[in-house]
């Protein structure tokens, strides 16, 4: 997982780079190089097609560069803005293509989510429960799935989730726990 919490000095140093790039688009190159891989992987996990992920990543950076003059510093990392654009592009792609939305995760991540929902986990029934869990995830809305992906499948902190989703950290926590509670109820019903 490529996630790393940025310190305030790092965020401010990045803002200085953004300000330079706002004056001269050619100076966007260091930001592009730094964020390309995380953004590419973020998109790939939700698209699962290498070439398409490359195209959408290029579109995300092109739009970021085009709208860079509108970007204002609000104490958030620049990457949060890029992730937000990426999420919009992914949603736009699925709206147009009408394909099934891809959700990628590791067994470990799914196990963690399963543990969070059910306290007592029996190893024998684990596989069956994971199947039930996947069926329950089907009932989540697009926005709820984004929270589950960011928190459990990508292991992001609530601070990062809040930055990407443009909510407060507390709000991100509350929303995530409400989704967990909803999943728990769906599982009990099954």
């Amino acid at each position, binding site marked *: 997982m490529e996630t790393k919490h940025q310190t305030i000095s790092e965020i401010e140093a990045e803002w200085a780079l953004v300000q330079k790039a706002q004056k001269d688009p050619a100076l966007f190159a260091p930001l592009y190089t730094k964020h390309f891989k995380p953004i590419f992987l973020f998109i790939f996990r939700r698209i699962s097609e290498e070439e398409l992920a490359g195209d959408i990543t290029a579109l995300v950076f*092109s739009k970021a560069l085009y709208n860079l003059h509108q970007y204002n510093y609000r104490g958030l990392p620049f990457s949060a803005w890029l992730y937000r654009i990426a999420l919009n592009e992914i949603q736009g792609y699925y709206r147009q293509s009408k394909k099934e939305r891809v*959700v990628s995760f590791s067994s470990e991540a799914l196990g963690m989510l399963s543990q969070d929902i059910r306290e007592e986990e029996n190893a024998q029934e684990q596989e069956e429960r994971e199947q039930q869990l996947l069926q329950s995830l089907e009932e989540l809305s697009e926005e709820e799935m984004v929270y589950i992906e960011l928190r459990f499948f990508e292991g992001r902190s609530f601070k990062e989730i809040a930055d990407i989703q443009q909510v407060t950290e507390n709000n991100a926590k509350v929303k995530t726990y409400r989704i967990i509670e909803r999943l728990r109820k769906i599982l009990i019903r099954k």
Partner: protein
Amino acid sequence: MAKYKFKKESKEPSDEFIRSKMDFNKILKNQQVISNYKQATKPLYKNRFFMGFMILLGVICLVIIFEERDPQEATVKPNKDSIVVDTLKK
């Protein structure tokens, strides 16, 4: 139809592949293309020159209307002095 397609342990592309997709010049070109497209499809009311011209045209029209109205008002509403002069003449 299922809403989501779950992919467990999907293999991520190699660093080499990701690097091969990096092309900053393409981004600069794309940005120019988006910029040109947005400029070409910009609605007229957002065009500063067009709006300036419309405001100028409005001002000119108002000036013409008031210029034409002034002599009419003068004939319709004669002031007291002119009435006195008219009666003296008679």
